[in-house]
């Protein structure tokens, strides 16, 4: 029977299960009389012919319209992450901050070497050891809509950045009081001294009070906003670029701002930046090599050599100020995921030291990171701490590690789960896998819990109840100052009222370090302060509370026609860029 034949054509050949279903349709069609079919067919042909003619005509009409050559100084930029919200207080994330840093400006700024310099404030004075500050604002600065920049805008921005819904609450101390002295002078007073108050102000972007009020955008757009407000889809900054169009996740177009206050001395020659997010590594590289984009970030490190070998692109690499490290749960009496019951092996310093010594950082550097990492003995990058060079890592020593484990009562090692993100840091999953192998050789059996960052962060952060026994994390101090690391990462988290140690996932705690941290905050004498920081890090290292691994490398891929200084905090800022 023909029916049988038609059916067999589909049975079992579909990857989905609908074969039988299709077969029934075919069975039906097969039953049709030849007459009805021959009637249907010419019409079908006719329609297809007409359609193709129409297509051809339309094609001809549009072919001419497509030859839109890019302007001479148009830069096309692809990043793995997208630009989520344009509201400068919605999301505290490096890529977003960098994007908006082209459009908005802070009272301070950071140079190519990350040195703090004047921004919208021409200069400032710190008085009474950091309890009182005077900021002298730049005159003649205009927002993109033509409004003047004045002290009112600073006061407004100080309120807005600390209002509910802002993700930048720590940028400006909660108890700082802002007073307008005159249109171009602002006084800030604090109940307790804070000499590093302005360290993160380069990314506290100043907004226009009048514009916000006109557009009903006086409140910051919370990250959870169901309907994006005006400020989330539009910008009005003072910076060198303004945003002309913005399709989240698809494309954002920046145009040079001819009325920028520093336009006369501008270093860039860019008229337009077209930003597109490209999440896939290989795709991003292909886009650079084919000349479709002028700059990509990041470059997957296995493709660096290929890009450098290509005729029209090169990579910019350098150490990033982010430190990648491993650490352990040192708080619970029994680990969440381990075969050791009734006690927590990581409370024993010898076990932590054994883990440290089992990690062969040089091989990770050469094989996993392809030499694009700087092994680190400290939890902070050398850029932020001048005495870094005086610290060295304990030597890689698997035999010593085994001995230490035996001394601690684990001659045959033990099992423990390890949390690791797989899409957050450079080769994070590979680093963790390498660590698994190295630890296996000293007898530690790691049960990998390697996950995308969404699931990873949901567990290991405070909101998830610090559900981890052993983990990998990366940290860039937002202030560019060691105090941030000592307080957020290495500080005790035993006081629920305090924000100290909020990102200390393993709960390492040494009160002596905390005391030093508090002194470091208010110490005005630079060399004394550096000494105290060194002492604090020494305490941390002697406790083996953390295994710092390395500062990962920055890797940007740029067209040979394009140049841009690479800043160590991984912010891509076009006001220093030049394109031929």
């Amino acid at each position, binding site marked *: 029977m023909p029916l049988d034949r038609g059916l067999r054509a589909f049975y079992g050949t579909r990857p989905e299960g609908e074969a039988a279903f299709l077969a029934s349709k*075919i069975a039906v069609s097969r039953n049709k009389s030849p007459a009805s079919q021959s009637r249907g067919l010419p019409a079908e042909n006719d329609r297809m012919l007409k359609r193709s003619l129409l297509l051809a005509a339309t094609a001809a009409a549009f072919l001419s319209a497509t030859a839109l050559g890019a302007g001479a100084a148009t830069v096309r930029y692809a990043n793995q992450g997208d630009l989520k919200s344009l509201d400068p207080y919605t999301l505290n994330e490096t890529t977003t901050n960098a994007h908006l840093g082209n459009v908005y400006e802070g009272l301070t700024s950071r140079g190519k070497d990350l040195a703090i310099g004047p921004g919208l404030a021409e200069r400032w004075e710190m008085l009474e050891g950091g309890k009182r500050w005077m900021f002298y604002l730049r005159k003649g600065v205009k927002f993109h809509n033509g409004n003047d920049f004045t002290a009112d805008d600073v006061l407004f921005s100080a309120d807005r950045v600390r209002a509910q819904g802002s993700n930048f609450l720590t940028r400006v101390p909660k108890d700082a009081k802002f007073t307008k002295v005159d249109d171009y002078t602002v006084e800030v007073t604090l109940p307790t001294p804070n000499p590093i108050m302005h360290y993160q102000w380069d990314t506290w972007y100043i907004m226009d009070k009048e514009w916000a009020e006109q557009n009903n955008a006086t409140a910051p757009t919370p990250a959870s906003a169901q309907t994006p407000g005006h400020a989330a889809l539009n910008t009005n900054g003072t910076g060198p670029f303004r945003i002309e169009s913005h399709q989240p996740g698809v494309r954002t177009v920046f145009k040079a701002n001819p009325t920028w206050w520093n336009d006369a001395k501008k270093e860039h020659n860019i008229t337009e930046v077209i930003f597109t997010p490209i999440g896939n590594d290989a795709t991003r590289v292909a886009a650079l090599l084919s000349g479709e984009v002028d700059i990509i970030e990041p470059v997957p490190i296995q493709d660096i050599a290929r890009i450098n070998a290509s005729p029209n692109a090169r990579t910019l690499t350098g150490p990033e100020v982010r430190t990648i490290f491993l650490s352990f749960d040192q708080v619970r009496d029994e680990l969440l995921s381990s075969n050791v019951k009734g006690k927590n092996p990581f409370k024993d310093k010898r076990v932590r030291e054994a883990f440290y010594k089992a990690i062969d950082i040089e091989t990770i550097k050469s094989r996993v990171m392809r030499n694009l990492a700087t092994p680190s003995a400290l939890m902070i990058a050398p850029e932020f701490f001048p005495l870094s060079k005086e610290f060295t890592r304990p030597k890689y020593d698997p035999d010593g590690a085994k001995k230490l484990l035996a001394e601690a009562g684990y001659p045959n090692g033990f099992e423990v789960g390890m949390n690791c993100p797989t899409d957050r840091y450079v080769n994070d999953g590979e680093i963790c896998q390498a660590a698994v192998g190295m630890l296996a050789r000293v007898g530690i059996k790691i049960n990998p819990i390697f996950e995308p960052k969404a699931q990873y962060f949901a567990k290991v952060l405070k909101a998830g109840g610090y559900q981890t026994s052993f983990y990998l994390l990366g940290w860039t101090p937002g202030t560019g100052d060691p105090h941030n690391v000592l307080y957020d990462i290495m500080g005790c988290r035993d006081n629920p009222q305090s924000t100290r140690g909020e990102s200390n996932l393993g709960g390492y705690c040494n009160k002596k370090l905390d005391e030093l941290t508090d002194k470091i905050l208010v110490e005005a004498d630079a060399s004394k302060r550096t000494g105290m920081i060194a002492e604090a890090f020494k305490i941390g290292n002697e406790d083996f509370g953390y295994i710092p691994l390395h500062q990962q490398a920055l890797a940007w891929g740029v067209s040979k026609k394009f140049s841009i200084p690479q800043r160590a905090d991984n912010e891509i800022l076009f006001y220093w860029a030049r394109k031929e």
Partner: protein
Amino acid sequence: MPLFKNADAARETAMLAFTIRRALQALGVLLAVGIIAFAMFRFAGDPVNQIVSIDTPAAEREEVRRSLGLDDPVPVQFGRYFLRAAQGNFGISYQFRQPVAQLLIDRMPATLELAFCATVFALTFGILMGVYSALRRDSLLSKLFQAVSLVGISLPTFLIGILLIYLFSVTLGLLPSYGRGDTVRLGWWTSGLFTLSGLKALIMPSITLGLFQMTLIMRLVRAEMLEVLRSDYIRFARARGLKTRAIHFGHALKNTLVPVITIAGLQLGAIIAFAIITETVFQWPGMGLLFVQAVQNVDIPIMAAYLLLVAAIFVTINLIVDILYTVVDPRLRSTLRQPV
């Protein structure tokens, strides 16, 4: 006469009843899929961590959670979702902070163009190769086609994609390995069909996506052609002295094409859904890629809307086919009424 009229009326009533029942069933399927989709994805991850930064305090996280309505009872969340979905509002994407409907519409042209080109590719080559291998069953070329068809069935989609990329992008550098190339805006529709780079970008994804369908069509055409060529009807035509060419293309192929076009139509839904894999391999900015990214980022609104959309496409195509068949051939009604 009265008898005839009655039968006519009865037939119309039956048809109407059939159509209504099919439509209701389709709605039922959609509702079931909606419940499943929402219930599943509601628990597939914590969207809060996607929208706050690592150092956001716990209280702030709780606030975000509350404002997203993620702490309401699940039935409430589902009810809210469905009510809004009925009005074409699938919520705001967690990642993009844009209406999901808008995101899907933005990416729909890419997927539909890819699906269209894949179908055209599958139909053209499937029919040509099928006809040829039915008429010249033992020629070398036929054997080659059969081998290609076996490869089309055996190789996983992603492997075909990788292979093409390796050959034509990495080694030869002829075709782009990702994306749509330049597109032209036609109202809300973006098209890659009118630019050279757009057409070049379409080649490999279309082949990857269409290869399986091409195999299917080729096998079907070949089997049907062989069947029809042996039938009495063709023998009669031959006996009447019609030219071989006329017999082959005027009669045999014609009779083959109806099931082929039916299959191609029904497969359109499958192609759109299967584009998930092809779009991932080629980073094609369509709905499938959006879906995969949504799964990775636990973007519940997008995932739920995409599932409903796929279900709706399938259900609609099947419904149309069902109804068309009843209209075209009343004899089928009794068949169709049985559970298939």
